């Protein structure tokens, strides 16, 4: 019997090695897998490359991972926020590498990894600092920049519901990067609010099919930290 449920965030992340590339779901706090990140901090892996839209807020979640100096490099679209002090401090000290990627290009590069696309031409960032040194091409009447996929070892995702095959639904704008990141990692680890019996998710409403999901941990909303 296929059963992708695992007992705890700690068990789900026990094998993360130093130097791993990890996609972390979430746009700000919406979709951020806080308990999985806590487990990653506790697990101790270092020299990580992290992919997230942002670079953490305040002192929890991704910000705590960065603050604990576990992150060698981050790929994101919007690191600078009022409360991104952990990232700001390490960035100014030269202790964390930043690859700034336009948000749509970030999403598309993650999708490309999941969908087996080797590279793609996007119009975004053409003629800007963020395309410096990159291959460009005029196709039709638009100019494009060549961008490459972002493959990862792990994806850490927060979804709403999951069944034991790994079919997922999300909640409102907490969907954001989740379905893309789930496709792009060798091992996709998901925390969900609720686990359900097979068949409780209508096959028309599955957002991430189980083929993309490897490990699922239930984190009931009642256990959630006061954010």
């Amino acid at each position: 019997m296929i059963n992708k449920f695992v007992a705890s965030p700690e068990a789900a992340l026990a094998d993360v090695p130093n130097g791993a590339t990890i996609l972390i779901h979430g746009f700000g706090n919406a979709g951020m897998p806080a308990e999985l990140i806590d487990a990653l901090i506790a697990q101790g892996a270092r020299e990580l490359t992290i992919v997230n839209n942002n670079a953490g807020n305040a002192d929890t979640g991704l910000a705590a991972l960065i603050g604990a100096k576990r992150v060698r490099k981050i790929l994101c679209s919007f690191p600078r926020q009022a409360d991104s002090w952990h990232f700001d401090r390490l960035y100014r000290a030269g202790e964390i590498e930043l690859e700034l990627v336009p948000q749509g290009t970030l999403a598309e590069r993650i999708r490309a990894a999941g969908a087996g696309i080797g590279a793609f031409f996007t119009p975004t960032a053409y003629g800007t600092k963020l395309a410096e040194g990159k291959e460009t091409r005029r196709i039709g009447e638009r100019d494009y920049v060549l961008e490459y996929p972002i493959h990862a070892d792990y994806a850490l995702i927060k979804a709403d519901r999951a069944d034991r095959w790994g079919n997922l639904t999300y909640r409102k704008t907490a969907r954001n990067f989740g379905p893309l990141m789930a496709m792009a990692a060798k091992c996709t680890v998901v925390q969900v609010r609720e686990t359900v019996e097979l068949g409780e998710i209508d096959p028309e409403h599955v957002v991430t099919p189980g083929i993309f999901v490897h490990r699922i941990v239930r984190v009931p909303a009642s256990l959630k930290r006061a954010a």
Partner: protein
Amino acid sequence: MKKLDRKQLAARVARDIPEGAYVNLGIGLPTLVADFLPKGREIILHSENGVLGIGPKPAPGEEDEDLINAGKEPVTLLTGGAYFHHADSFGMIRGRHLDFAVLGAFQVSARGDLANWHTGAPDAIPAVGGAMDLAVGAKKVLVMMEHLTKSGESKIVERCSYPLTAARCVDRIYTDLAVIDVKPDGLHVVDIVDGLDFQELQRLTGVPLKKPLIAA
């Protein structure tokens, strides 16, 4: 002259958004446009983080941390709205499905180059978000900004000194002093605030302007 305040500027932009338009309002000043869209006109607001049909701010205590806009502020969803993931959301943007993107700016050049993401200061932490996607993707890019910097320099310039967001992307500029169309043959003034004449607007602006066909 009567400079437009932030709300008046937002109302001026809102007036130009037609029924049925799909619109992305950038973070900051452009977000204010939502409050001034004419009642009874159905306009569908998009946010980069995977939502179409954004409604008014939630009542206090009704916020949902899973329902936010690109500025990470709590929002509501209109009846008829939809959620989708980031690749679909930016597919809408890059694929030219949005009718309008309303964006803030540091500078706009006479040929429509936009600079709105980075001051270029060596110690600044760069952050781009969806700005470059919106600038290249929307069918029409509308810029909202103060006409002058705090030190009185024109933000409409011959050539942007700040790093570009995208080249030749801006269609129309809304400032606290005037509305100006960016066309292949130059900058065409559409209207000017009361108490300011074309000559004075030209004097304040860094680059040559063309008079409106009907004087303001």
